[in-house]
């Protein structure tokens, strides 16, 4: 060879970058179509649409990949995807107008997927959802339980009018379920305690010390163990793909810009929109009132504290003013940090996932690990607060009902005996 090649950014690399990025995305997402499908979607090819509907369904459904859900007809999945995206605030109307039977709109679906990817750490969230649990895990806080209820599972029918007794019956049923749950939970803890003690010293990882139930189970049942290992290896492959995706994704976004440009601009006249279920408006109003009430409460409490502080600190001198300024600066900083972290928290974050249980006598203080005693203490505080809130709400109701009943003379209300 006579010619010497100079090392310069090879255009072939740039040409490869996009397919490799898309390939990484395809490898990390669950049930993702081939990279070729993504390319076809840009050109709105009909054969690309069904795969993208299915992908969106898989990605948006809150439950893990379920046999029953996965076998829903494409049409049903498409409808569900549309309402799920709508409830997340997807801005484009073109999606809603796509036919349900699922053979059109590949480009719009690609845009929808990109929209989801841009809003939050979607691959990571999906990986966390399906993460292979190797330890015995217990969530410490119930923040996930507070997460938005999202859409009802596909296949829920509307109810007619019910009597209030039905509501009472459902409440009773709920109470019973909780009681059973608590009893079962106690037994499970006892069993875990035993398993952890019996396998002490077995784990190669000294910081863990003993085996967990999944680990012991894989020893008891080698076939199950083999399956667990396969799942673990699959997850590892998806994790590597996710890392690669993160490294390469810039070129994907540049490409998506071109996809968006390829779409015809949406017409803006206010055409008829599918009716949004009303509860959202009602709930938002409720929320607004609640926030206002909280703000009022906070303002009162802050006033009281400020006055008390001023009285205790005494007087006004320059020292006092300087301290006050310093405090205001600190508070402003805290608020700014809070706002930043809230803004970052766009996707459905899981800040405090479940933790792996480890039985140990060691009393090393500090460190990143949480001790059961500390967690219990914090939970007790939360319990007390919730009980107080519930009591307060019930008291509010009692007053209101008494007022309403009082408007009706000639009745005696005998409250139930207090225990």
């Amino acid at each position: 060879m006579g010619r010497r090649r100079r090392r310069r950014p090879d255009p072939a690399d740039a040409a490869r970058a996009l397919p490799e990025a898309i390939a990484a995305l395809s490898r990390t997402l669950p049930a993702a179509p081939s990279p070729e499908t993504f390319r076809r979607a840009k050109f709105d090819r009909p054969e690309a649409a069904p795969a993208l509907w299915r992908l969106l369904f898989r990605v948006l459904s809150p439950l893990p990949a379920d046999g029953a859900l996965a076998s829903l007809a494409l049409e049903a999945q498409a409808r569900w995807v549309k309402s799920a995206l709508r409830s997340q605030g997807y801005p484009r109307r073109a999606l809603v107008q796509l036919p349900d039977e699922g053979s059109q709109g590949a480009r719009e679906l690609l845009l929808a997927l990109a929209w989801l990817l841009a809003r939050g750490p979607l691959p990571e969230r999906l990986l966390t959802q399906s993460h292979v649990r190797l330890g015995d895990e217990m969530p410490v806080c119930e923040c996930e339980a507070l997460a938005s209820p999202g859409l009802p599972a596909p296949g829920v029918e509307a109810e007619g009018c019910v009597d209030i007794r039905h509501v009472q019956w459902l409440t009773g049923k709920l109470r019973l379920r909780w009681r059973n749950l608590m009893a079962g939970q106690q037994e499970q803890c006892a069993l875990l305690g035993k398993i952890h003690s019996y396998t002490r010293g077995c784990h190669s990882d000294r910081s863990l010390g003993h085996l967990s139930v999944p680990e012991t189970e894989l020893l008891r049942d080698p076939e199950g163990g083999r399956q667990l290992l396969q799942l673990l290896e699959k997850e590892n492959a998806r994790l590597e793909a996710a890392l690669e995706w993160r490294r390469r994704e810039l070129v994907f976004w540049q490409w998506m810009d071109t996809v968006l440009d390829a779409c015809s601009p949406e017409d803006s006249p206010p055409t008829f929109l599918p009716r949004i279920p009303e509860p959202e408006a009602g709930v938002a109003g409720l929320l607004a009132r609640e926030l206002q009430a909280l703000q009022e409460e906070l303002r009162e409490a802050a006033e009281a504290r400020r006055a008390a502080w001023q009285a205790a600190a005494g007087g006004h001198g320059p020292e006092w003013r300087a301290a006050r300024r310093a405090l205001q600066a600190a508070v402003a900083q805290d608020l700014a940090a809070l706002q930043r972290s809230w803004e970052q928290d766009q996707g459905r974050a899981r800040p405090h996932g479940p933790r792996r249980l480890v039985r140990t006598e060691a009393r090393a203080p500090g460190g990143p690990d949480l001790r059961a005693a500390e967690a219990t203490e914090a939970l007790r505080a939360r319990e007390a607060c919730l009980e107080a809130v519930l009591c307060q709400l019930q008291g509010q109701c009692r007053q209101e009902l008494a007022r309403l009943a009082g408007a009706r003379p000639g009745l005696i209300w005998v409250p139930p005996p207090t225990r």
Partner: protein
Amino acid sequence: MLPAECSRRLVAELRDALDSCAERQRQLEQSLRVSRRLLRVWEPAETPAPEPTPGPEINEEAPSSACPPSPQDLKELELLTQALEKAVRVRKGLSKAGEGVKVPSLKSGSASTATKASAPPSTSRCTGSRAPETKPPRGVHHPWVPAKDLPGRRLLLVGDGAHMGQGAGANKTEAGLRDQQIVPQAASQVPEAFTLKDKGALLRLPEAFRKAASRNARLWAQLSSMQTGDSADAAAATATATAKTQFLQKMQTAAGLPGSMLSTAEVGRLQKACSMLRLRMREELTAAVVEQPQGLWPEGPPRAALPCGGGADPVWSPQLLLYSSTQELQTLAALRLRVAMLDQQVHLEKVLMAELLPLLREQEPLGRPWLALCRAAHCLLCEGGQHFLTVLQDEPADRLSPP
């Protein structure tokens, strides 16, 4: 009867609550099943038919022949064979009448295992080999690897046929004797019962699994650090973030829908924020009541904070929860469930208030239906659905109709 929309919303909320409870119950029951089974006597994954001749046993092990033994398998096999021969010698010394018959089968068993390298004994079984695999995960076959540091090489054992039919209790008394005897699966009938309680400490995780698990942890750590922006390539990260924001903005402006409507997801997040805020306020205010303002800025009492900041770490990270006794664990678990239940109750209370109070306010308090509704509402709203109050009509005497 309640109006249709109201009914729908109430029933939907209660159904949600019931469903989430049912889901927890389902998961709990699954865990209970697994845990109970682990604490019982372990059934061997393959129970060979109890026959004295080694041939059929080896054939039962034959599925494993599809799987080529690893060097580790072979080494262990060799060790086992040596141990077997020693055991035969020991047994000859101790043999009772009933066990004499086993010795020839032992011999033939050991001979055949020595020659048939493809039929490894129980300590290395290729269980997964029925389905053709490109990469048989070898590590998983070695559930009971000898603890190399123990002098009296305590391999987990399979029992011999003489003790067939005796329960786990008998195994315990023979345990001391058995430890010195090593009998291959091929020659024996019923494997010795294994209980976690007695022999749990001998277990070791297979190599392949350990490797995969540590790789898994490493990958998660890498992904997590990339999330929090620790990555070396900050410039690329910023460029990507900008590109994403621009894309979202373009999507929004290209839209035909008014962007100001709150989506359900956003409403949900706001509700969550509201609840957390309310709780936090209560904590602060109740703490402040107790606290005396000292100095220029009263320090809040050092509270055990749950790791619920606002720190968004959406990626799983291997954090531990340390406990020291079963009692401690039970208390924690019970409390966690109680908090979840209370949280649900507060939410339902608000929903009920929002639905029922307006109804009662609107309706004319005329007849029985209103009274019944009021009484039921009182029960639900004020007594958690558990106690009813009594309503008495206080008719003036002159209104009573004569009998």
